[in-house]
C-alpha cells in the first residue's frame, strides 16, 4: 500500500494503482482521454502529464502509466505540466472541426472539457484539416470521423473489452480511420458502448440524434428492465418522451457498460399504442369510476363466492413495492390465490434461485474475476447479454470457460463447448454434485464429475445455469453442485439466469403460494371468478396460450394494470394504466438477490411529438398533461389498501415484516445495491415427468430466448425492430440430412400446440435430435414460450 503526496495531499492507495487513479481518489481530476477505468492505460493521448518532484520517478511523466509508489511527490499543475498539456491539446485539436454548436456531443463532450482544462482557447493553426468519408454503421451508431482525435478508446472497447471483430482502426499516423471494412451494421451486441466511451462526437447514439442537449434532459439513476441482471443505466427524457439510455457505473453488476438491448430497448415507454387511460370494457373512464367499479366488483365477489374467488397475478416486471402491496392487498381481501409469475416452471425456478444462500451467489463482478466458469443450459447473449461480457473479461485474464448446452451458444470469446442433449443436462449436473466420486453410471455423469474436479481445483470458480433450460429441478441440482464443488477455504459461487428483472423479488414474496397453474385450474373449475393482473401478461407468458385464453374467458372479471398494450390488456374488462419503470421510483431484485433502487426519471405523459404532432406549443388546451393518467401500480394498491402512497413507508413496512429485505429502506438509487440478507425456503418440487420416447422422425423442440424480439418491453422499442430476426428453426446437419431437408428453405414445424412454417437454419454446434426455435413476439411463432420442458415435434418440408 504505497503512500504518496499529490498536490500537497497525502494518500495511501492499493498496490497497482496508477497515479491518475490515485489523484482521482483525492478528488483531483487529471485531464485525460485514452485512460478509462475499464479499459486501462495505454499512454497514447499524452494529456495526463504530471510532474514528479520526489521519489523513484522524476520529471514530467504520464500519470496513467506510472504506478503509485512510496515517497512520490507529485504536482499535477506545475507550470511545465500546464504548458505541456496546452501543447498536447493544441495538437489534438489541429484537425478537429469547429462544429461544437451543431455537434451531437454538445454538452457532454470530454474533448471540450479537456480543451478548456488544458488551457487551449485560441486556435493558431490555419492550415487545411484532414477530412473523411463517414460510414453507415447501422441503426444504432452515427459516424462522424472528422471529429476524431485518435484516442483509440473505441477500438479498445469494441475489440478488446467487447470482443467485436468488425470495427477497428485502419491506416497510420494522421490518416487513422476508425470504422468498418465497409459500410454495414456493427455486429457486436455491445456496440452502443462506443457512444459512451467516445470522448467526442465521432460515435453518437443515432436513435437520439437531433433530439436534445444533455442539459435539457431529465435524467436519474435507474435500472435496466430488459433481463434479470439489473444493469445500472441513466435514462434521459424530454418533452414526455424517453429519448435514450446510457450506461451507469455499478462495479458489482454491469461495471461501466451495457448491452444494446438495454441501451436501445427504451422505446416501449413512448409506444404510440400504449394505453394511457383507465378503461371499463372499451370505454374510457376516470380513475374514480374505474376504482369504484373495481372495488364494487371485488366486494360483490367476496360476498357472493367468498374471497377465494379473487385471484391475483403480478410479474417479474413489477417493482418489489408493487409486488409487496399486491400481496398485502390479497391478504387484506383474504385471498391466498396469488402468484408472481404466469409461467409455472419459471415461477418454480425463480423460487429455487431465491433459496440460494446470498453469500454463495455470484455477482457479475465475481464472474469478471473468476478463474473458471461452467455454464449449464445458459445462453448469456440471449438470456442476460451482459453476462457474456463479464465472461469475456474473465477469459481475458486466463479463466477457463466451459459451455454445456444443447443450443449453439455464441459468446464473444473462444471457449470449450460441449453440445449436450437436454436430457443429458440433469446427468451432467448429477456428476457435478459428486466431483469426488470414482465411478459414474454414465458418460454424462463422468463428464460432470470431471468438470466438478476442475471447479474444485480452481481458486474462484463459478457455476452458471439458465433457469429456462434447467427448470426448477435442474436449478436445485446446480445449487447443490456448486456447494459440492466448493474448494476448501473458498466457495464455488453460482448464478442462475431468471426470466425478468424482478423474478427474484417475486420468488421471495411467494412463500408456498400457488403457481399460476393452480389459479388456471380454479378458473376452469369456476371457483375463481376474477383475476387481477398487475403488470402481468399471462396470455403471452403462460406456455399454453389456448388453455390460458379459455380459462380467462370463463372469468367474470379480468382486471389488468399495465404500461404496455399486451395480449392480456386486449381481454381486460377493467384496465388501469401504470407508469413505465422510468416514470416512477421503486426497487428491483436482480438474479443474484441484489436489491437495487431506481429513481423516477420523468412524469408520464404522451410524448409531445405524438400529442402535438410535431407542433409546438400544442394547439389545444387542458388542465392535464395529455396521457398523464398512468399511475405507479403500487400507489394505486396503496390507495386500495386505504393508506398513504409513500415509497419510504412501503419499504420500511416490508423490511419490518420480512427481515430478509433488511437494508431496503436505506437504499439509494446511485448505490451499488445490497443483497437480500437470507434466502427463502427451498420450494418442494414435484419430479418432472420423464420425457417420452421419441419416434425416429421426432425431435425435441427447445424454445429459447433471443437477444432481440423475446423480451416484452424491448420488443416494443421501434429501433430494435431493425435487428429482429425472422422466425427460424435451427437443426443439426445430421438431422437435416436424415429428414432430407434443405437449408434456407421453409420447413413445417408440427407440435401439439400448433404448426408453423419457418426458415430452416443449420448449425453444427447444436445437439443432434434437438430443434431450436427462438421466441419472437409478434411473429407467427409468438405463442411458443421458452422455459417449458422440451416438447416433441416433427419437422417436414413445407
Amino acid at each position, binding site marked *: 500500500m504505497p503512500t504518496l503526496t499529490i498536490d500537497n495531499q497525502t494518500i495511501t492507495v492499493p498496490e497497482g494503482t496508477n497515479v491518475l487513479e490515485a489523484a482521482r481518489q483525492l478528488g483531483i481530476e487529471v485531464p485525460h482521454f485514452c485512460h478509462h477505468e475499464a479499459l486501462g492505460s495505454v499512454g497514447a493521448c499524452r494529456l495526463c502529464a504530471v510532474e514528479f518532484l520526489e521519489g523513484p520517478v522524476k520529471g514530467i511523466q504520464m500519470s496513467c502509466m506510472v504506478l503509485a509508489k512510496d515517497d512520490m511527490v507529485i504536482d499535477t499543475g506545475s507550470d511545465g505540466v500546464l504548458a505541456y498539456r496546452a501543447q498536447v491539446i493544441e495538437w489534438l485539436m489541429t484537425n478537429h472541426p469547429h462544429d461544437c454548436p451543431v455537434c451531437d456531443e454538445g454538452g457532454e463532450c470530454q474533448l471540450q472539457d479537456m480543451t478548456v482544462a488544458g488551457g487551449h482557447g485560441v486556435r493558431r493553426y490555419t492550415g487545411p484539416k484532414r477530412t473523411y468519408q463517414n460510414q453507415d454503421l447501422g441503426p444504432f451508431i452515427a459516424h462522424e470521423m472528422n471529429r476524431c482525435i485518435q484516442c483509440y478508446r473505441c477500438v479498445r472497447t469494441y475489440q478488446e473489452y467487447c470482443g467485436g471483430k468488425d470495427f477497428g482502426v485502419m*491506416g497510420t499516423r494522421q490518416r487513422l480511420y476508425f470504422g468498418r471494412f465497409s459500410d454495414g451494421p456493427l455486429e457486436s451486441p455491445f456496440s452502443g458502448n462506443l457512444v459512451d466511451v467516445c470522448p467526442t462526437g465521432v460515435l453518437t447514439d443515432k436513435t437520439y440524434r437531433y433530439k436534445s442537449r444533455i442539459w435539457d434532459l431529465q435524467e436519474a439513476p435507474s435500472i435496466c428492465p430488459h433481463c434479470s441482471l439489473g444493469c445500472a443505466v441513466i435514462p434521459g427524457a424530454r418533452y414526455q418522451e424517453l429519448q435514450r439510455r446510457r450506461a451507469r457505473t455499478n462495479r458489482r453488476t454491469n461495471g461501466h457498460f451495457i448491452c444494446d438491448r438495454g441501451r436501445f430497448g427504451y422505446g416501449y415507454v413512448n409506444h404510440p399504442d400504449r394505453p394511457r387511460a383507465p378503461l371499463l370494457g372499451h370505454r374510457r373512464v376516470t380513475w374514480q369510476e374505474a376504482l369504484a367499479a373495481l372495488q364494487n366488483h371485488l366486494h360483490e365477489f367476496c360476498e357472493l363466492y367468498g374471497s377465494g374467488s379473487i385471484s391475483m397475478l403480478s410479474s417479474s416486471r413489477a417493482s418489489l413495492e408493487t409486488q409487496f402491496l399486491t400481496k398485502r392487498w390479497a391478504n387484506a381481501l383474504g385471498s391466498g390465490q396469488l402468484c408472481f409469475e404466469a409461467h409455472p416452471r419459471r415461477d418454480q425456478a425463480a423460487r429455487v434461485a431465491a433459496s440460494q444462500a446470498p453469500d454463495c451467489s455470484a455477482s457479475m463482478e465475481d464472474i469478471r474475476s473468476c478463474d473458471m466458469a461452467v455454464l449449464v443450459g445458459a445462453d448469456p447473449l440471449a438470456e442476460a447479454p451482459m453476462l457474456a461480457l463479464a465472461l469475456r473479461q474473465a477469459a481475458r485474464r486466463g479463466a477457463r470457460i466451459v459451455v454445456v448446452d444443447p443450443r449453439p451458444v455464441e459468446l464473444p470469446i473462444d471457449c470449450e463447448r460441449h453440445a449436450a442433449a437436454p436430457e443429458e443436462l440433469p446427468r451432467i449436473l448429477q456428476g457435478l454434485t459428486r466431483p469426488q466420486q470414482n465411478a459414474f453410471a454414465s458418460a454424462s455423469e463422468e463428464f460432470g464429475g470431471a468438470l466438478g474436479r476442475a471447479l474444485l481445483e480452481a481458486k474462484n470458480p463459478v457455476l452458471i445455469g439458465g433457469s429456462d433450460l434447467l427448470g426448477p429441478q435442474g436449478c436445485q441440482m446446480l445449487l447443490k453442485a456448486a456447494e459440492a464443488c466448493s474448494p476448501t477455504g473458498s466457495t464455488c459461487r453460482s448464478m442462475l439466469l431468471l426470466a425478468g428483472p424482478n423474478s427474484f423479488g417475486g420468488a421471495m414474496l411467494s412463500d408456498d403460494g400457488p403457481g399460476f397453474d393452480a389459479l388456471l385450474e380454479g378458473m376452469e373449475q369456476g371457483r375463481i371468478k376474477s383475476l387481477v393482473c398487475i403488470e402481468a401478461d399471462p396470455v403471452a407468458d403462460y406456455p399454453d396460450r389456448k388453455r390460458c385464453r379459455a380459462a380467462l374467458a370463463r372469468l367474470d372479471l379480468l382486471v389488468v394494470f399495465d404500461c404496455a398494450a399486451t395480449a392480456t390488456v386486449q381481454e381486460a374488462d377493467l384496465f388501469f394504466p401504470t407508469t413505465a419503470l422510468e416514470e416512477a421510483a421503486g426497487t428491483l431484485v436482480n438474479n443474484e438477490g441484489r436489491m437495487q433502487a431506481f429513481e423516477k426519471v420523468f412524469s408520464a405523459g404522451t410524448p409531445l411529438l405524438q400529442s402535438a404532432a410535431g407542433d409546438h406549443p400544442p394547439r389545444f388546451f387542458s388542465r392535464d398533461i395529455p396521457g398523464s393518467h398512468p399511475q405507479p401500480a403500487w400507489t394505486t394498491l396503496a390507495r386500495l389498501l386505504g393508506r398513504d402512497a409513500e415509497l419510504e413507508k412501503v419499504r420500511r413496512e416490508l423490511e419490518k415484516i420480512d427481515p430478509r429485505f433488511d437494508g431496503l429502506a436505506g437504499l439509494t438509487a446511485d448505490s451499488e445495491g445490497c443483497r437480500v440478507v437470507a434466502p427463502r425456503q427451498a420450494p418442494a418440487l414435484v419430479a418432472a415427468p420423464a420425457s417420452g420416447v421419441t419416434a425416429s422422425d421426432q425431435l425435441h423442440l427447445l424454445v429459447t430466448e433471443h437477444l432481440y424480439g423475446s423480451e416484452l418491453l424491448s420488443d416494443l422499442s421501434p429501433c430494435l425492430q431493425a435487428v429482429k430476426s425472422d422466425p427460424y428453426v435451427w437443426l443439426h446437419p445430421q438431422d437435416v440430412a436424415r429428414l432430407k431437408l434443405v437449408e434456407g428453405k421453409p420447413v413445417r414445424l408440427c407440435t401439439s400446440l400448433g404448426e408453423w412454417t419457418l426458415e430452416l437454419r443449420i448449425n453444427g454446434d447444436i445437439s443432434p435430435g434437438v430443434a431450436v426455435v427462438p421466441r419472437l413476439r409478434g411473429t407467427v411463432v409468438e405463442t411458443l414460450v421458452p422455459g417449458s420442458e422440451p416438447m416433441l415435434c416433427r419437422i417436414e418440408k413445407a
Partner: protein
Amino acid sequence: MATLLSEKQIAQLKRRVKETPHPREMVLDVLHAIQDANGWVSDEGVELAAIVLGLSSLQVEEIATFYDKIYRRPVGRKVIHVCDSICCWSRGSEAIMLRLQQLLAIAPGETTADGMFTLLPTCCLGACGEAPALRIGRTLYGGVEPEQLEAILDKERAEVES
C-alpha cells in the same frame, strides 16, 4: 475472388495458416502472396486473405493499411519508395524526391503514364546508415545523389523490359 490466387496457392497458404499457432502471424505472408500475383491488394484481395486466415476483413485491413509496402490501390510495375524520415531528410532526401518528380513527370502518389513507376514517400527503410536511401521494387539504393537517379531509373526500366 478465386482468380486472385490459384487454387493451389490458396490451399498451400491455408495449410501454413493451420500450422501456425496464431494465424495473425501470417497476415503479411498472405497479403504479399496476393500482391505478388496481382501487383496490388484489392478489396477482394483483403476479403480473400480474411477467408484464408480465418479473420474478419477488418482485422486484415487494419494490418494491410498499416504497412506502406502493401499497396491497397493499383500501382506501376515498380514502386519507388523515397525515405523522408529524419536521417534521410537531413542528408538531402528532399532533393531526391524533387529530382524524381522531374524525371518521371509525376507527383508523389502518382504513377507514370506508361505504368512503369509509382512514386511514394516512406517514413523509414531501415537504411539510416546509408542515408539518403530509396527503394525500387525490392532493390535498396543507399547514399544516393540526385545525379545518379537518371541512371538508376534507366537500369530499373531496362530490367523490366528485358
